[in-house]
């Protein structure tokens, strides 16, 4: 294998120009925490490594008339320490708290997590809850892609080799209950087997007035489970209701994946994790 050539353009324009000409032969590197695994093992069969980790155009978190914008190059540590995300996208902030280990959170970027298209990308459920769209650009055009459509299959991104994710535009939600939960082989630093995120708000009578929920890791691509929204909205959350909803969720997962050897574990685990996550909203 020929040696990989490292390229670090000074700005986004140069990076998009480079990808326009060499995209097929290029692997983009930002935080590197996924890419370096393949570089080290020799599994990376590209000619160029394009470093976009220092581009100002991909940085920053801001609330403007587009929505809540999170640059693709923002690290998980930056997400965790953002006050703006604490008040407008708490589920994403909670995701960052539980994402891998601190050394990885300091490097890994939200754009890289999505572009890598791993089914177990931890940022996906929270992005889906906030109905996030990715602003994707190549040299000649930009488009907005719903985050659930960023991966077509497990590990297969819908990005073309000429494209870069610039930022994510989230719908901000304030003053409600938000959480992210996952199950892995151990509590810290494990690949998620099941992950889920939620944002919910109750009305004065204690009924669920608003709910967004998404499931990740146990299906090939993340799903914004609108059936949970439909099932729970307008109802008073009781222990029994949440348990029933968790059961529905597990059935939906099986509908998507089919019955597998792991289903015997995942079916009750999804129901149980849903119960654990939503229990604080039971009055």
């Amino acid at each position, binding site marked *: 294998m020929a*040696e*990989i*050539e*490292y390229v*670090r353009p000074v700005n986004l324009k140069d990076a998009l120009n480079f990808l326009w000409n060499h995209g097929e032969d290029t692997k983009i*590197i930002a935080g*590197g*925490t996924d890419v*370096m*695994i393949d*570089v*080290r093992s020799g599994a990376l069969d590209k000619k160029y*490594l394009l*470093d976009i*980790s220092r581009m100002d155009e991909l940085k920053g978190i801001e609330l403007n008339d587009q929505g809540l914008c999170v640059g693709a190059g923002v690290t998980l*540590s930056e997400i965790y320490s953002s006050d703006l995300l604490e008040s407008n996208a708490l589920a994403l902030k909670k995701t960052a*708290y539980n994402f*891998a*280990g*601190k*050394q*990885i959170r*300091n*490097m890994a970027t939200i754009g890289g997590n999505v572009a890598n298209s791993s089914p177990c990308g931890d940022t996906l459920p929270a992005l889906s809850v906030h109905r996030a769209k990715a602003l994707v650009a190549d040299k000649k055009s930009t488009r907005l892609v719903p985050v659930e459509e960023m991966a077509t299959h497990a590990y297969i991104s819908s990005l073309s080799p000429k494209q870069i994710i610039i930022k994510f535009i989230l719908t901000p939600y304030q003053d409600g209950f938000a959480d992210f939960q996952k199950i892995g082989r151990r509590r*810290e*630093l494990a690949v998620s087997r099941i992950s889920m995120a939620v944002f919910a708000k109750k009305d004065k009578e204690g009924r669920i007035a608003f709910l967004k929920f998404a499931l990740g890791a146990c299906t090939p691509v993340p799903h914004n489970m609108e059936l949970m929204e439909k099932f729970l909205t307008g109802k008073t959350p009781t222990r029994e209701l949440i348990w029933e909803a968790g059961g529905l969720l597990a059935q939906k997962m099986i509908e998507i994946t089919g019955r597998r050897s792991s289903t015997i574990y995942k079916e009750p685990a999804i129901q149980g994790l849903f119960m654990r996550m939503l229990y604080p909203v039971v009055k």
Partner: protein
Amino acid sequence: MVNIKFKINGQKKALNIHDDMTALAVIRSLLKLTGTKEGCGIGECGACTINVDGKAVNSCLMLGAQLDGTTVVTVEGLAAKDGLAPVQKAFIENHGVQCGFCTPGILMSVNALLQEIPDPGHEEISKTLAGNLCRCTGYSQIFTSVKEAARLAGQGDQHG
């Protein structure tokens, strides 16, 4: 080949490295700073932890070329001329070291933590150490060592 310039343990370095080298390989193979260890090589064990611009990172998952322009501290850079850093003293005195393989990485994680949070609580220490595997101590002595390091550093015994 890529030219990089960076500062490591107070010294300026200019190197010509292979494009696909990890930061860990630059530090161990080119600079012969072998205090930083390679454990798993895939970002799980934390033995290769270094501080880049004040942040703890896994040097096995960092591209060497990305060191360009940064300021790096490895375990060799913790101690000052007049003695060990508080974090090192605390680990020795509280038996935070057994076989020692994970220790350089843990010291660098803790060094970054104490710079960010001078008086960390149990949860903050726990979240920090989650990225560093130790199979000897059972972590109890490490927690004690970190708390003692924070206390020593707070008394003005600051190096590193």
